[in-house]
């Protein structure tokens, strides 16, 4: 995979502290392990001229950022009341079985990390999950297998 240069990403953002989340989003997207490295944090701190602890403090608050390497694809299952009513609990059990991991863990082949998310706002097709940027709804066992297979084949 051809990864964008980190300095190029930084140079697109003004050196203003309120840009912090936007910069972190862009840097994380550029990493194949869906996580931010210590070097990334140092780059941001230098770019914004703030202490490293300041960057660390902010990013650890938000669920979309990770310091722990994650799989190439992050699967986020919604268990808000609406999806729950639609059977998201069973979906989650089935996913854990199919992937052989628990929530928060990464598969051995490094392909998938399983997470929970709050409501994704597409409740009309509950239960719903998000794989990277893709929403997948009306989940059944069959559909789960189909989606996993598609990502395993690299689309």
């Amino acid at each position, binding site marked *: 995979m051809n990864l964008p240069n980190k300095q190029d990403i930084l140079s697109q953002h003004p050196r203003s502290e309120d840009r912090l989340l936007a910069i972190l989003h862009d840097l994380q997207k550029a990493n194949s392990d869906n996580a931010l490295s210590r070097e990334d944090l140092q780059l941001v701190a230098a770019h914004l001229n703030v202490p490293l602890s300041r960057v660390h403090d*902010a990013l650890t*608050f938000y669920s979309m950022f990770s310091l722990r390497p994650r799989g190439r694809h992050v699967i986020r299952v919604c*268990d808000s*009341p609406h999806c729950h009513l639609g059977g998201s609990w069973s979906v989650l059990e089935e996913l854990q079985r199919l992937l052989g991991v628990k929530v928060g863990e990464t598969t051995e082949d490094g392909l998938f990390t399983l997470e929970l998310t*709050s*409501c994704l706002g597409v*409740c009309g097709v509950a239960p719903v999950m998000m794989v990277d940027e893709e929403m997948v709804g009306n989940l059944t066992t069959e559909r789960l297998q189909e989606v996993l297979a598609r990502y395993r084949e690299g689309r």
Partner: protein
Amino acid sequence: MKLARAHVLIGVDDEARLAGVEDIIRTLHTSLEQAGLADEIQVVETGTLGVSGHGVVLVVYPEGIYYGDVTADIVPHIVEEHLFKGRPVESLRLPSATAAVRPSEVYRRQTRVVLRNCGVIDPGNIDEYIAAGGYEALGKSLGDMRPEEVVAEIKESGLRGRGGAGFPTGLKWELVRRAAGEPKYVVCNADEGEPGTFKDRLILEGDPHKLVEGMVLCAYACGASQGFVYIRGEYGLSIERIQGAIDQARDYGLLGRDIMGSGFAFDMEVRPGAGAYVCGEETSLLESLEGKRGWPRMRPPYPVTFGLWGKPTALNNVETLANVPEIVAGGAEWYKQLGTAACTGTKVYTILGHVRFPGLVEVEMGTPLRALVYDLGGGLPDGQALKAVLVGGAAGAFVTPQALDVRMDYESLRNWAAALGSGAILVMDESACLVDMLGSVLRFFRHESCGQCVPCRAGTDRLVNILEGIRRGQGGASALEELERIAATMQVASLCPLGQSVLLPVHTALTGFRDEFVAHIEGTNCPACSRGREVATG
């Protein structure tokens, strides 16, 4: 401009995208060309058509016939049968032919102010918004009205914040206008995270220019020069659409240094969040905008005097701002005729769960909940009996069938008025177990509690554990009292509305559906749990 014999409106929102709408649009254009109809039938890509749970939905005008669950395979058939031969494809019409009410009739029962353009115009094209009367209110304000007059008009209209607190919008703007400190900011709260709530997303996707116009009007009224739209990081399409609208508006001179040649300067930016429900709370949102942890601030001081970077800030919800151009264009007198005397205007809802027509609707303030569930939602399918309605998402109220006649406005709802803001209406039939549903709500709060204050951090955890005990039949007789006592403590002692709002779902579930909780504690059979609600296999 060419005149078209018929129009095909196709709803492009997140739900349609995950059903493959891009493919279908391509197929539609190819089929129309092959049938030689490309010149007489116009395809309009628009926002949601207000129908949820039916994948790709399209509507053919002038007949107003809705098709749902449309796939690429079936498109040539619709083109051939309906558009070429003039015979609607009955088998694909929404809802099934046996239904008493069709979506077009549901549409007619609504009062569309905020959603006037949603599902009608192409949200990616500023000219269509202008053709529908867009930016007229801005022209009128900048040309003929002083900022104080805009504030007065909004005050007179009786508009109240649609985010939940119901604070009078005009008064908020006046406070910002009078507050000392420069520059002043306008911030739109598009961090919509309340479970079951996505009306703001659909407004952003369906009519983004209305929000831009509302922001500029607010800025002019308050004397602000810079604006931000803080939007959920997960809302990819909304971010794209609102960014597109801002860029177009800037090209047209509707944002920037000298808007419409009036000398007034204002510009705005989109800022994505990063997955934190608490950032929907206004002070937490401001912290996050400043690039920090989204920890709520102590209030007072309120954002009207001490907001973004400590400057006076007008912070409004998407739906609130989307009302503003309509009020300025139509006048406060017109707007006041909608809704009730104390609570004017309309409210946007998402109706979901066990109803025949899930989707997005807009009705006047004061509409009874019963009308939303049965007239607009079409009631429950297959003659199922209603068990409960969760109004307002996780921070909402569980309503019993006996209480359905409650009117939906800030005055009538009183102590659970906060639930009105989200507009989420989740309808549950007899298969829903309230112990299980409350468990889902409480786990949500435990997950989203930001951990800054102890009552919320420790309280949400205790609540989940106690409820889990009840579910497993190990609760003991005092468990229900303890749930309520902890939630009540959180209401008075928590720093922000997240912890304060947990009491509402707990209290309404325990009072309205006590038998079910007692059945779990005593180990007798819960009628809902014994049915099972496993996800379909195979």
